[in-house]
């Protein structure tokens, strides 16, 4: 039995749509700002995985750089959002 790896990776990307939809639900619904930032964190984890699996599907290793860039941006964005949330409405 041989397994076609690109087709398999495509199937995994399709499976990853489920956590993407759940994170989108939390981002739209989430009662506070912190919930939306948590959903953004989740979104980035899914994005890194999809970018990596796209490397397997297409064979272009440039998508690995996209995954690394997403992981880098995620940390800076979370730190900035956390600072924003600590200061939020403290002057109101």
């Amino acid at each position, binding site marked *: 039995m041989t397994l076609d790896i690109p087709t398999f990776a495509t199937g995994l990307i399709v499976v990853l749509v489920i956590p993407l939809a759940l994170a989108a639900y939390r981002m739209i619904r989430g009662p506070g700002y912190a919930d939306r930032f948590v959903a953004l964190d*989740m979104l980035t984890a899914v994005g890194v995985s999809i970018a990596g699996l796209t490397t397997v599907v297409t064979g272009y290793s440039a998508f690995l750089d996209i995954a690394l860039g997403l992981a880098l941006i995620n940390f800076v964005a979370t730190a900035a959002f956390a600072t924003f949330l600590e200061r939020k409405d403290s002057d109101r």
Partner: protein
Amino acid sequence: MIRVSIAVFMLCAGVAFIAIAGLGVARLPDVFQRMHSATKAGGIGSSLVMVGILLLNVSSPITPLLTIAFMLLTLSVSSQLLGRSAYLSGASFRGMERGDALAGVLPRRGAPGPAEREVSLGDDTGLEGAGDGVRIGRD
């Protein structure tokens, strides 16, 4: 062949972890538990997927290794930052048995000061209405 099998297993495990993390983000009751699910399970899932890609594609191993190292280093820090800022901005708790252990230690918004330590737990309003200056459900 055995390497491809291990890679397929790693990819499946990573995607399963990410799916469970998404389920937790959608279903868990408060911000802190959702943060726990998103950062820990999501980070492990992404790292496992990158390990699988590393096993499948050995032509450029440095970028997946960098991604894994960076995610494992920074996800704990970012989860701590998110939890701290959510606590300080007055997000509500659910299912905490012993109450607020940090009451009076950190300046939590919407909480009574260090003199009186009773913090009202269990309100589900989060930050709703914080934009227009109205506090709902918090005394």
